[in-house]
């Protein structure tokens, strides 16, 4: 951790990249204050010889480049008496809460040493020290540093010297034995990727070639990563004047036959909801990736929460059935977003994909997600001279969509209620027929097994969604090791609901745990509304920004609500 600009996030990213080069898996999550400069920044890195998708329960090492704003996010860094704190001697006094953890504190002269070495900065010394401490070959770390920082004027020789000096510091304090190096991995099969990048890639794989966006934390880096890559593929990403315009531009482009999306976070989604209702009524495919942050209102823009579930599910006016999906991990941001594009295009219906700041901005090493099978393209009406009913009442509710330019298929896409032809109608029969059509097309579709990730078997079932799935899966593994049979159901498809599939998945369940990161238990209430739960239900529903950790889920699994 350190003040904004001290390089804490860069240090964490470089450490993860270097570790990844030699076979470690890992996850870096970031926590920053609202300030652009001079705030606080925390990089949380978790390394393991097997894939990492979530936070752990504690940290072994805390490196403090300074303590200036540490009290603001110290609650996000659980330490204990086995933890080691390595702090810069020039960084000020540690907050009492840090000392109260019982962690072993060592002060080291990062700044003093950096002042003596050309090109060096305290964070580079810290990186060298961490690299040595974790047994990461210094060559690997040096390469990562040079790849990232050489364009900022750092020479290879200076980087090598600074990292070596940092590594030497490990001889000055006692520490536990070094970690054994992990097994080397096949090269080429793995990615270093953030959830926001993965979502962008999923959209590109799904065929999205137009995006209109408005900047908003923590979704902006998704748009920024996507913009040049979309152009390389012949597409465009443009910045609109606001979120309302973004959503409407997306509908315009999609009406023109191009799979299209927008990217936002809570406040932006709120502005888009009227137009999402239009997409439902006019049956225009469109994808919204919503990277959730703390709410309501401006809330906590830089930190994670699962509190946009209600607006995603229920935020549209009128009876407006639509698709709501949720990514479950960094890598799953790709899978879920690509699936959302497929579903939206197939069902001619808007899809909201819920990601969050934790996943979106987490950097991880993961296996390349396998490509999803190719989806059939949008059902299009070919040119012709016979009568064309844009909103024809078909058996599966999906009616072929004519793309402007197609001869003889002119129609008006209309937010007014309409008849099958598309002519505005306020008649009861037309309203009912079109409501039924728009509902049927979502309900009759076979979503297959992807509606949820189901892990294990047992009478105890944990129901969760989104990024909290990582903590739940880890807790379930530990619970099984303690002899408790646990099944985890992590929902990917939140709307339309899947009552038959859920009934099958819940067969035999006698006890349910619901785990979510929202203060008002939005997911729990959603489950109560649509799915039967067993008599015994326990709930973890806590707001952000503190993550749900595996330990507390495990504790509930093993010991129940004992308070």
């Amino acid at each position, binding site marked *: 951790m350190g003040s904004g600009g001290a390089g804490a996030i860069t240090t964490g990213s470089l450490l993860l990249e270097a570790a990844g080069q030699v076979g470690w898996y890992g996850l870096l999550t970031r926590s920053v204050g609202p300030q652009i400069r001079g705030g606080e920044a925390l990089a949380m890195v978790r390394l393991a010889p097997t894939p990492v998708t979530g936070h752990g329960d504690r940290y072994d090492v805390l490196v403090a480049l300074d303590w200036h704003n540490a009290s603001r996010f110290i609650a996000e860094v659980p330490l204990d008496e086995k933890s080691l704190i390595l702090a810069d001697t020039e960084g000020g006094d540690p907050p009492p809460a840090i000392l109260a953890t019982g962690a072993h504190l060592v002060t080291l002269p990062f700044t003093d040493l950096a002042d003596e070495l050309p090109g060096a900065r305290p964070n580079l010394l810290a990186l060298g020290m961490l690299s040595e401490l974790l047994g990461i070959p210094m060559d690997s770390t040096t390469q990562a540093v040079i790849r990232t920082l050489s364009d900022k004027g750092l020479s290879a020789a200076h980087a090598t010297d600074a990292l070596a000096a940092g590594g030497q510091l490990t001889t000055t304090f006692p520490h536990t034995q070094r970690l054994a190096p992990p097994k080397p991995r096949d090269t080429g099969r793995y990615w*270093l990727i953030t959830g926001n990048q993965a979502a962008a890639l999923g959209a590109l794989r799904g065929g999205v070639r137009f995006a209109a966006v408005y900047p908003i934390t923590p979704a902006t880096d998704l748009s920024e990563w996507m913009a040049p890559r979309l152009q390389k593929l012949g597409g465009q990403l443009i910045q609109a*004047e606001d979120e309302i*315009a973004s959503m409407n531009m*997306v509908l315009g482009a999609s009406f*023109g036959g191009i799979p299209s999306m927008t990217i936002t976070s809570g406040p932006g989604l709120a502005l888009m909801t009227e137009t999402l209702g239009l997409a439902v009524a006019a049956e225009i495919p469109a994808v919204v990736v919503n990277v959730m942050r703390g709410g309501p209102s401006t809330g906590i823009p830089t930190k994670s929460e699962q509190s946009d579930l209600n607006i995603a599910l229920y935020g549209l006016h009128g009876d407006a059935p639509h698709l709501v999906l949720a990514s479950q991990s960094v890598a799953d941001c790709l899978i879920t977003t690509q699936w959302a594009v497929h579903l939206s295009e197939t069902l001619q219906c808007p899809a909201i994909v819920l990601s969050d700041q934790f996943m979106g901005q987490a950097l991880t090493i993961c296996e390349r997600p396998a490509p999803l099978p190719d989806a059939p393209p949008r059902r299009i009406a070919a040119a012709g001279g016979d009568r064309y009913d844009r909103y024809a009442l078909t058996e599966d509710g999906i009616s072929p969509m004519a793309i402007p*330019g197609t001869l003889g298929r002119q129609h008006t896409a209309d937010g007014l209620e309409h008849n099958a032809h598309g002519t505005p109608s306020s008649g009861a029969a037309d309203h009912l027929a079109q409501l039924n059509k728009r509902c049927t097309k979502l309900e009759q579709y076979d979503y297959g097994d992807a509606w949820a990730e189901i892990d294990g078997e047992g009478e105890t079932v944990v129901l969760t969604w989104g990024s909290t799935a990582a903590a739940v899966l880890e807790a379930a593994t530990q619970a099984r090791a303690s002899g408790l049979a646990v099944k985890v159901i992590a929902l990917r498809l939140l709307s339309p609901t899947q009552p038959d599939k859920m009934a099958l998945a819940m067969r035999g369940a006698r006890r349910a745990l619901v785990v979510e990161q929202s203060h008002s238990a939005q997911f729990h209430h959603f489950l109560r509304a649509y799915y039967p739960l067993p008599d015994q239900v326990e709930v973890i529903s806590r707001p952000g920004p503190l993550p749900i950790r595996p330990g507390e889920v495990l504790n509930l699994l093993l010991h129940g609500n004992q308070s």
Partner: protein
Amino acid sequence: MNKAEPLIARYSHKDYKSAVKPIWCPGCGHFGVESSLFRALAYLELPPEQVAIISGIGCSSRIPAYTQCYGFHGVHGRAPAVATGLKLARPELTVIVTSGDGDAFSIGGNHFIHACRRNVDMTLLVMDNEVYGMTKGQPSPTTPADWDSKIAPGGTGVNPFAPLAVALASGANFIARGFSGDPNGVARLLVEAIQHPGFSFVQVLSPCVTYRPEEKFWKKMVHSSSVEPTHDPAVAGHRLLSDDGFTTGVFYIGNRPTYTATVGTSDNDLSAIEEELAI
């Protein structure tokens, strides 16, 4: 285009008209504007399926359903954004936004400004009757400050704004005003507006005979511009700010480059992008 030249339709204006009967009141100015639009499309020989008419909410925004072109009747005020997305996705189409003074200047004011600024090749046709007609007579951004209404007894006390001057300041590339009582004149303006590259803005004074019956006298107040259109925004600005609001004609013809961030031929090979992520 020579003003003396009659509009000889190669397509008939009937080729653009659908069977749906307009909801407009008898005597509404919008009938004339609709007719002018169809005449302009016929004159330009645009196949109906190559034209997209995009609208928001209000009396004027009902036009898409009355045409044989492709149409999009969306939410209130956002039609310029829909049109922007469509034109970038399908640059070969002729894209026209039909709107009213409430739709374009009030709820859609931000999109109006930024559509002018962005300069995508499209035409914005605003049927300005200085009132909200569909909601039965409330003041709009172009309604005089002292106009008495149920919602604002004694008037709003807020001065109307000058949409053509706003369009000029925002960067519109073609700015004109017409009067619905002169359908030939409006058709000529629309032909020019559609043909001119970039964002074209045409305000058509279109009386609301139901809620603003005094607007029937507009036909005595309008007068055509006695000067040629200018390419100089400073000259156009002076004219627009000193105008009485009833001068018809083309005020400004700009030559700003058209916004060209259009979607091209799609490349589906993502391997180079995926390789960036390899570790």
